[in-house]
């Protein structure tokens, strides 16, 4: 009788075959602490949030030399035109939107590049490092010790009311952390 019970158990176990599941990193653009650039005061006494954000993304995408040069060369406040001119002068590949196009943000996160996004009515730039159906995760260069999690719609409302500018560079993002299949 006990064998029959065991047999039923074995057969019941067959129903438990599940498709492959893999956990993903969160945030997707999981910038290591050492790669995060804090904001600094430039020669004009202005914050350098745009440059700090770009430097963090340059390091995430393996451009350590460019990041070091950028830190030494640039600083202070920055406009979309000014940053584009600097990218073009340095031959840095980039992509941007100034139209508040959410598809751009989703692309930047989907390809694990992340992007700089304007907040605070356009006065500040932070890095968008994750965006899913529920949440956005930000890396603020004024507090690089932690990620900031906000509801997706809250972030989008903030961004769209801050000129809707988002910009990133186009290189290979860091490899994902090894994930376990279960």
């Amino acid at each position, binding site marked *: 009788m006990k064998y*029959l019970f065991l047999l039923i158990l074995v057969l019941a176990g067959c129903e438990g075959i599940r498709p*492959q599941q893999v956990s993903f990193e969160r945030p997707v653009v999981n910038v*290591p602490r050492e790669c995060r650039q804090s904001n600094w005061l430039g020669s004009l006494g202005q914050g350098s949030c745009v440059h700090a954000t770009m430097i963090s993304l340059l390091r995430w995408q393996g451009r350590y030399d460019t990041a070091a040069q950028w830190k030494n060369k640039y600083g202070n406040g920055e406009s979309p035109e000014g940053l584009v001119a600097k990218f073009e002068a340095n031959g840095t590949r980039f992509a941007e*939107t100034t139209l508040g196009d959410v598809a751009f943000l989703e692309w930047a996160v989907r390809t694990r590049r992340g992007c700089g996004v304007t907040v605070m009515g356009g006065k500040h730039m932070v890095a968008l490092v994750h965006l899913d159906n529920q949440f956005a995760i930000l890396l603020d260069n004024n507090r690089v010790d932690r990620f900031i999690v906000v509801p997706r719609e809250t972030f989008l409302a903030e961004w769209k009311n801050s000129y809707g500018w988002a910009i990133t560079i186009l290189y290979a993002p*860091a490899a994902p952390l090894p994930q*376990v299949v279960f």
Partner: protein
Amino acid sequence: MSRVFLSLLMVLVLTQGLCAQTNYGVDAQERVVRLPEDGLKWHLSVVGQDTQYREVLGWFDIVPNLKALKSKVLFHQVTPSDPIYSERYAPNIKALPTVRLQDERGVVIFEAAGKNLPMTGEGLYAAIASAVNGSEELLPWRRKNRQPAPSPQPDPVPDTDPAPQPLDNGGAPALEPVDEYPITLIVACIALLVGSIVGQVQASKKYHSGIK
């Protein structure tokens, strides 16, 4: 004539002013029209710092198959002095140098480190190809449950690599899907059932003989 000229000049100046205003702050034109969709690309990391590391890196520029593979994945050269190393590699690297191939989700498809690295580029490529094909053989249902491997697509940015395809040699072989109830399991269950019946009969005999 001079009035006409002046009028034209005025129109030109006004138009220039409007354009300048439009370009200030918010630019109404996208900088990149088509963005590279390379989020499904696989990642190949070569990690190390010594002469063996440099030799392995060189294989990816010399050995044709490895060179082709390099152009189809997101290729990472990592040294322990890189800022990214301590958090993302040091905790999970067994030895240096390491060659690690991961799919787009981060699952490690192939990894060889230290003395386990083949001594030639051709050997390394064969090992990678075997692992890629083997991973599909071991997990044949992956092909059912996963999205199909993306085929190369035209890319608007010349330097950006084409969309991911694991290997040039055709990747995983086309295998028949495995049944959800493997035949060996069914045979084992039948054997178990027969065994239990025989056991019951023998126990019953012993029980009756005991009464005698």
